[in-house]
Every structure is written in structure tokens, then in C-alpha cells.
């Protein structure tokens, strides 16, 4: 059910935008649009089917941890 909704909404977005992009002959736009749409579609399908997706904020946390600890000790 949820997969159906995701695929339908993704194809609806494609149906709205792709004819316009072909009409104005924007090749780069079409490539970026398709990549983003595909990325969004896969991410949604994975998330709603219970696959664990690593949290990007954990990565940011890992990167800023030394700076954060140093600053809060300093202050």
C-alpha cells in the first residue's frame, strides 16, 4: 500500500515536470531532475520498508565533536 503511494507520487512528479523540461530543451536540468527523483524514490522506499538508514546528523555530530568539546570546555 505505502509502496504504491510512493511510486504513484514519484511518477506524478515526473509526469508534471518531464514534458516541460523536454519542451524547453534543458538537458542538464533533466539529468539532475531524474537523479534527484530517483534518489528520493529509493530513499522513501527503503525507509518505509523498514531498512535502517544511517542518520546524517550522526556524521555531523562525529565531525564536530572535538570542536564542540573544546569550545564548551573553554567557555
Amino acid at each position: 500500500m505505502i509502496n504504491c503511494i510512493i511510486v504513484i507520487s514519484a511518477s506524478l512528479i515526473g509526469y508534471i515536470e518531464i514534458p516541460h523540461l523536454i519542451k524547453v530543451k534543458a538537458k542538464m536540468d533533466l539529468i539532475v531532475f531524474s537523479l534527484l527523483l530517483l534518489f528520493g524514490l529509493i530513499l522513501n522506499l527503503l525507509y518505509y520498508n523498514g531498512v535502517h538508514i544511517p542518520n546524517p546528523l550522526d556524521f555531523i555530530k562525529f565531525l564536530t565533536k572535538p570542536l564542540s568539546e573544546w569550545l564548551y570546555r573553554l567557555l
Partner: protein
Amino acid sequence: MDPNKITHHQFIILVMLFTIGSNILDAPFVITNVANQSGWLAGILGWGVGILLVWLYSTVAQQFPKQTFIEYSQAVLGKALGNALNLFYVIYYFFLSSVMVGLIISFLNLQILPRTPMEVIGISFLLIAITGVHYGLGVIGRSAEIFFPWISTFLCLMFILLLPQINLSHLTPILDGGVRPIFRAAFTFLGLPFLELPIFLMIIPYVDNQKHIKKCFLLGTLLGGLVLVSTIFLCILVLGAQLTSLNQYPSYQLGKEISIGNFIQRIEVMVAIIWILTIFYKLSICLFVTSHGLSKLLHLKEQRSVLLPLILIISVITRIISPNQSFYDQFIRYYWAPASLPIGLGIPLLLLIVGRLRKKSIAL
């Protein structure tokens, strides 16, 4: 006519709404958690430093009038380094817009619409914001001008109606924990609105009156900061530091406290309209900068080609990045300000210094 043109009045309003944004909800409890009843001192300190930061950003922007951040960072720092920084800038604001959606979802879901699925709230909010971005910055600016009297009226009303509830003894003892907690809280407060403000480096070139840009930027931040600091102050005065730091949405709790002669009561949803609107404008500005920056970065013909896929991506990223409330709280308390330092301090300083040094070799 360029759909992205805005007037300088609209610019002031947008800066103010962005500064108030989501921070009116989360700044009070984050600050009082660290600095207790002296949190208002930390607020004033952070506000002062924030004004200095805005002065830095507007100086950077005045060096290169008529160009957006994405364009002049390439010109100043060279193609490779400039593009790397631009990508970082776009990704930062992409995450900020996801955080905004997450915040409005958790607020509405906890307080107002408990049985509505989170996705429905998030996607309907995103769809409205995306529609605004699709029609251009001019539409966002003009609609902000329409809603601004509403927001300011409700804010003034909230402040005035709360005056009878004030208990001055909540403020004592002042500075009982020394000055260190104040500096810590001020640093956290700096990250909550002020280090995010380089977002306007993308918007300044579209303002019509370039001469007064510095004044407008400073005025907007001054007013927005005033609202934030007085909200923190009122939270401490009415609820006390203990209750403020324990409450998830202390400024919403403020609305519940309003009671005039046991007759005017429970008008907190009217108060909630303030931040539903301010978060909406913050989200719209973030989405505009994300999509506009991405289309400038990749040399796309049209900005709208990235907008609709962004709905699909943001609606799920929002769920991934805030798996639970405590993770989010810890993140904004300890990591958001340090993570914002490169965007808020590093890149503008770099652009200012390198731009000054290379001024003659770059023909702008």
C-alpha cells in the same frame, strides 16, 4: 520583471521572520537549561555578538553587490574551492529546511493534531512552501508583508496579556552559577538564529535598494533578536527557570498561562499562529536558497526542476534526522552552534579577507 525582486521593507521583514523562526520555540528551554534564571543575560550577550556577525555578513555582501554568494565565492576563491564551499552551503540549508519541517511536525503532532499522521502534516506544509518558492522570492516577500501585521499584533498581545502573570522573584538569585554558564548559553544561542543568517547572502542581490542594505539587515536582526530575548525573559519571569528548562515548548506554555479575570483564557493556539507563520517563512527562505543555490551551482536553466523532487527527499530526510525528540534536543544544544561556525564565521571571514586582497585582480 524578475519574479525574485523584493523591496527593502520586505527584506527587513524576511530577516526578522527568519531570526524569530523556529528559535522562539526552542531557544528558551535550551538557554535556561544551561544558564538557569540568568538566561536572559545570555540572551542579551548572544544578541549583541549576533549583531556584530550580521555587520560582518553585510560587509561581505557590500563588497560584491549584484552577485549572489554562489557566484562571488567562485570568483574570489577559484572554481574548485569555491564550488566545494558552495556545495557545503547548499547542503547546510537543505538540512536546515529538513529540521524546520521536523520541528513543525513534532510541534503540531504533540500539541494540536495528535492523531494526524506525521507525513500528512509535513507534506502539506512542504507543498505550500514549495508553491511559494515556485512563484519566486517576490511572492514570499509580498505575502510576508501581508502577514507581518498579524504576527506583530499577536506578539504584542501575548506580551501585554502576560504582564499580570509576571513574578519578579523568579529572577533571583542573579548569576548564582558564575559567568561561565552565561557564556556557554550565549554561544548556543548564537548558533540558533544568528549563525544561520548568511542565508541572506543569497537574497541580498535581489533587494531593490542596495544602498541601505546594511541598515536593513541590522534592523531586521535587531528586531528579531529583541523578540527572542524578550520571549526568553518572559518565559523566565512567568514560568521560572525550572519549568522553562523542563518544558518542550515553553513559549507555547506561556500562551496557556494567559488569564485575564478568568475570562480570557486558553488562547494558546492564537499564540501558536505566530510560530506556525514564522517557521513557514523560515522554511520558504531555506527552500528558496537550497533550490536556487543548487540550480546556480549546477548551471541549470530553471529553478523549478529541482523543487518537486525536493519534497520527496525532504519529507523522508525529516523523519530520518530526528528519530526521537531527545536526539534532536541534544543535537541543537551541543552540536548545532559548532556545526554552524564554518558557515556563520569561517566562510564570510575567508571571503572578506581574500576578497580584500584580490580586489584588484577580480574584475566585478
